[in-house]
């Protein structure tokens, strides 16, 4: 393992890529702690400390997780990658609905590039919206409901506009940094940035637990190691559907005749269903925080406040679970198209032994995939339930560090990045990280 790392650093171009990625990460973290001009840092620090002592902070759960604590510090990169993720989700969903986008997606590389460009425009739009909403919250003091100190240095319109503009530009800079990593570093830039933010809050949270109770700390660590192992196990699991290619002669050369397989992962959808479900369940909380303070909240808002704001309410848990399973199937059906795969195989003379090419193959693939996704979706649901269960059973805090989403992100991105480094390494040496 260690020799593999030294070998990675001895390879010149790989070393440059790794150092480049590390440099970008450092820049990114720097922007995440640099306060936006106009913020009263002293008061914000104090309010943050008060908010962490209570458990008011969980309203912003998902956003807070993705911003690595930058959000409530009102830093330059406060919005983090959330606008980009949201706009990617929106465009992904719109692809199913709008025929023009679907046509673009089918066009291949150039169409995908266009969709990416739309995603980027939408990101800036969302960033303007979110930063405006966010600075307005900070200005009226609703960001920390229990804290009565002014969060901004002065409340005139010019300062507020400057802050909004800076945060928006910060989001675009994050987007650029991510693309730079994808282009010149290792791994997928955006996911590495998310990874950084998720990891960044770990040490302080673990330290918090350790300070409260050393015994809980040991148990949390044990559970964490066990869960990481389990997640790695399931993420790597795949079913290999055998494919036989017919031999054919082209000129005097012989082609094909090989047998390969189509790898179908147990969890083909990755972590996206969890993100979809959390983003959707964040909406009722938002509604309640917007309308719940009025004198006479309507019956709907009251019902939402009773059932959906607390993470450990049974209705919330069941809805979360069902949503995750639904989105797993939904996303798998978007990303893997059995008909297309079967057609491609038929075109190149491939077939699954015992099954006719064409429609029967597509049906077979669909059957295998649907059956395989059943445990996959259950696993995703269960993993994301872990922090909630821990909350109920052990009375742990809501920001339980080994939350399902953070572990899934850590393991998923980590595995992916290591695999990419590995394949780069194998261009020069045979032995890599994974044996």
């Amino acid at each position, binding site marked *: 393992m260690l020799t593999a790392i030294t070998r990675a650093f001895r390879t010149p171009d790989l070393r440059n890529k790794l150092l480049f990625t590390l440099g970008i990460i450092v820049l990114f973290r720097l922007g995440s702690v640099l306060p936006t001009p106009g913020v009263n840092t002293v008061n914000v620090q104090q309010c943050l400390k008060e908010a962490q002592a209570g458990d008011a902070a969980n309203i912003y759960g998902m956003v807070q997780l993705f911003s690595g604590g930058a959000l409530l510090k009102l830093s330059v990169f406060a919005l983090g990658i959330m606008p980009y993720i949201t706009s990617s989700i929106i465009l992904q969903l719109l692809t199913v609905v709008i025929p023009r986008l679907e046509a673009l997606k089918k066009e291949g590389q150039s169409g995908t590039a266009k969709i990416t460009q739309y*995603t980027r425009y939408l990101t800036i739009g969302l960033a303007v919206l979110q930063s405006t909403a966010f600075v307005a919250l900070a200005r009226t003091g609703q960001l920390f409901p229990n804290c009565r100190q002014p969060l901004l240095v002065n409340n005139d319109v010019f300062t507020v506009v400057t802050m909004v503009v800076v945060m928006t530009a910060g989001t675009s800079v994050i987007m650029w940094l991510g693309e730079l990593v994808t282009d010149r570093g290792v791994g997928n830039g*955006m*996911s590495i940035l998310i990874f950084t933010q998720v990891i960044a809050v770990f040490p302080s949270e673990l330290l918090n637990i350790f300070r409260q109770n050393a015994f809980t700390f040991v148990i949390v660590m044990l559970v964490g190691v066990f869960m990481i192992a389990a997640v790695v196990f399931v993420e790597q699991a795949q079913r290999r559907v055998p494919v036989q290619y017919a031999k054919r002669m082209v000129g005097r050369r012989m082609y094909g005749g090989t047998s390969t397989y189509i790898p179908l992962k147990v969890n083909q959808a990755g972590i996206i269903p969890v993100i979809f479900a959390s983003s959707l369940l964040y909406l009722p909380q938002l509604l309640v925080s917007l309308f719940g303070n009025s004198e006479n909240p309507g019956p709907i808002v009251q019902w939402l406040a009773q059932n959906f704001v607390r993470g450990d309410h049974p209705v919330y848990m069941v809805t979360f679970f069902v949503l995750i399973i639904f989105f797993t199937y939904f996303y798998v059906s978007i990303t893997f198209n059995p008909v297309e795969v079967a057609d491609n195989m038929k075109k190149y003379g491939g077939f699954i032994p015992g099954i006719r090419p064409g429609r029967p193959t597509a049906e077979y693939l669909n059957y295998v995939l649907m059956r395989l996704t059943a445990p996959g979706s259950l696993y995703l649901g269960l993993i994301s339930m872990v922090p909630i269960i821990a909350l109920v059973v052990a009375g742990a805090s809501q920001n339980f560090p080994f939350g399902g989403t953070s572990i899934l992100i850590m393991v998923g991105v980590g595995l992916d990045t290591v695999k990419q480094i590995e394949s780069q390494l194998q261009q020069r040496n045979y032995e890599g990280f994974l044996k």
Partner: protein
Amino acid sequence: MIIGISIALILSSALMVLLVLLHKGKGGGLSDLFGGGFTSSFGGSSVVERNLDRLTVITGSVWFVCIIALGLLLRPA
């Protein structure tokens, strides 16, 4: 002084957003965000792209300096 730097900051922010949007997007959207397989980015960057990079880095530095300067000026007493 504060107003001057604020205006410079707003201008450089706007320029920054514009320059980033001018880049060709390299991320492949959501599908390869979280372990969605292997995306290979073929093709080196063109001259236009490289000049754009240089401009973006310069603007970014100006933006950063403006933020720090304004942050120091607007420090809570």
